[in-house]
């Protein structure tokens, strides 16, 4: 379902009647049933909905981690179904930064090595890699923890390392899947402020959450219900026009 946006500006991601069916033996589960939406540059979009509503599936499709079973998904104008795994890997590497609920840092590596990892896959030379990773850690105020392993950091610190890893390649799109779900309120607030700053820098931010007060900070809310995207309510439109609450 198209939104009332300026259609001349380029869409970062666009879904047209996207469906996703999981097959579990004989059982078919439709996680998405005809979702159409478009997210533009510099937007801050929250995706909300109860568990099982399909919001994680939507997130995975947006992140090129999964492919739709029907419909069209375009990322910066390219039809994702027509791209092979190598190209999708490059898009994930250069264009998208992920922040997960479980942090997903590699336990045997230091914070700095974790932040460097996307640059390793981008084949950036070691000196530049290090400099950029240090800069990213500075951005999340964790440069003094660079040599610590994830196990030696608090949950909030781990998530900030994950944010540093997401921003180190300077991606246009940040996808955050329940980034505050495992954090206490202070740490959660820190991480949200960081994500909002990244959005203020001009990056598109898509945030999945089930917490209403987190969602209301977004410009726009997409509510998932039973595999379908429901138009944002009027109150949220107000929020979108007025910026942050």
């Amino acid at each position, binding site marked *: 379902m198209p939104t009332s946006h300026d259609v001349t500006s380029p869409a970062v991601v666009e879904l047209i009647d996207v469906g996703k069916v999981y097959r579990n033996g004989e059982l078919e589960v439709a996680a998405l049933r005809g979702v159409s939406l478009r997210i533009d540059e510099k937007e801050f979009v929250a995706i909300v909905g109860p568990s099982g509503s399909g919001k994680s599936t939507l997130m*995975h499709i947006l*992140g090129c*981690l*999964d492919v739709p079973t029907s419909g069209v998904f375009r990322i910066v104008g390219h039809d994702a179904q027509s791209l092979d*795994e*190598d190209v999708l*890997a*490059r898009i*994930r*590497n*250069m264009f998208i930064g*992920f922040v*997960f609920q479980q942090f*997903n*840092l*590699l336990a*045997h*590596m230091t914070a700095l090595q974790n932040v460097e*990892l*996307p640059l*390793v*896959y*981008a*084949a950036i030379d070691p000196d530049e890699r290090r400099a950029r990773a240090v800069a990213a850690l500075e951005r999340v105020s964790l440069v003094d923890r660079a040599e610590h392993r994830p196990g030696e950091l608090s949950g909030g610190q781990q998530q900030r390392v994950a944010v540093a*890893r997401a921003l180190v*390649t300077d991606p246009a799109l940040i996808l955050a899947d329940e980034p505050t779900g495992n954090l206490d309120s202070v740490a959660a607030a820190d991480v949200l402020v960081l994500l909002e700053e990244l959005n203020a820098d001009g990056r598109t931010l898509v945030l999945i959450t089930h917490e209403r007060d987190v969602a209301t900070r977004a410009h726009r809310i997409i509510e998932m219900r039973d595999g379908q995207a429901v138009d944002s309510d009027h109150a949220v439109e107000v929020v979108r026009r007025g910026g942050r609450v």
Partner: protein
Amino acid sequence: MTWRDTLWTALDAVRSHRLRSSLTMLGILIGITAVVLTVGIGQGASATVRDQINELGTNLLVVSPGSSTNSTGVRTGFATATTLTQADATALTSKVAAPDVEAVSPVSTASAELVNPTTGANWTTTLTGTTPSWQTTRSRGAVQGRFLTATDERNAAAVVVLGPDTVTQLFPGVDPLGSSVTYNGVKLQVVGVLANLSSAEQAASNDLAVVPLSTYSQRLVGGASRNSVSSIYVKSTSAGTLSAAYQETNALLLNSHHVANAGTADFSVATQQSILAASNQVDNTLTVMLAGIAVISLLVGGIGVMNIMLVSVTERIREIGVRKAIGAAPSVIRRQFLVEASVLGLAGGLLGVGLGVLGAVLVPEFSDQRVILSIPASIGAIVIAVGIGVVFGVYPASRAARLAPIDALRSE
């Protein structure tokens, strides 16, 4: 991702699972050690054979009584018949009939118990009756005293030349020259001691008692077959004339034994090399068997690598998912696991060669087996080890590469 980073990541993964990595390497290590030692033992054995050829001389023929096959095709016992005589040996010394023969020495042997009458020490050794030319045919003389002379032979003198080991047994710490030993009550004066043969396989040749053939047949052993000999050593004038000497010996003996058909000859002539070639073949069979065991253990080691890599893929499924989410292409993941498997192979190979070298040093300490390390074989073994890592890493690596990023991320 650069190769350097791939290697670094693989080393990191190997390091962070120390116990598992070392158990995996163990399989490869055992296989490679087996390969290195097998090749080393094989080469040691053939070097020993080479040394024996050099020690005995390449231009030696050995005539033995009895033939390989009789006229009805029944194999008769090699060297059991008593068809060779001293007369045959004498005939072969003819410069006319056998111009390429330099020296001929008939030999008769028997097991005999010698006694040192002074101390009462006794020792069973090989009593060898032969002529002075034995020195020439066997390229071996006395280091102490003298060897047998023509006079001894003519007079059937009661003299004996002892092997160095025999001296050790009968005259421990005493100079044997001038002393005597008795055999069956016959007193034999020790006139010389033979040179020590160095190579380990020649140890038996250091324990013997050499007496004149005439003394042997007339005074010591005798019996009905007193004129027959156990074998005749024939030395050609040079290595180049060996085959001519072979022809002459064969023709002369066929003629004097009145044998028309060479297939029914009652004697056989063998070159020293053909005898050694036979023993070489036994060594080769052994080497092939050991190599077979080595190959099997390498195969088992390779399956171990595959098994562990599969476990590793399953265990690190989430890590693979994270790596894919942040931009690792399938080919990069595949390469990472392949490099990891080859690092395991390489480490196992290096350790295996190290252990093989250690074994090569230790084996000769505890047995008389010679081991010669081969550098090309060791390098080859390391290459094989890496190859095993790669070959058996292909399947786990492609499984890791094929994982959908989302399936990998979702697993707990």
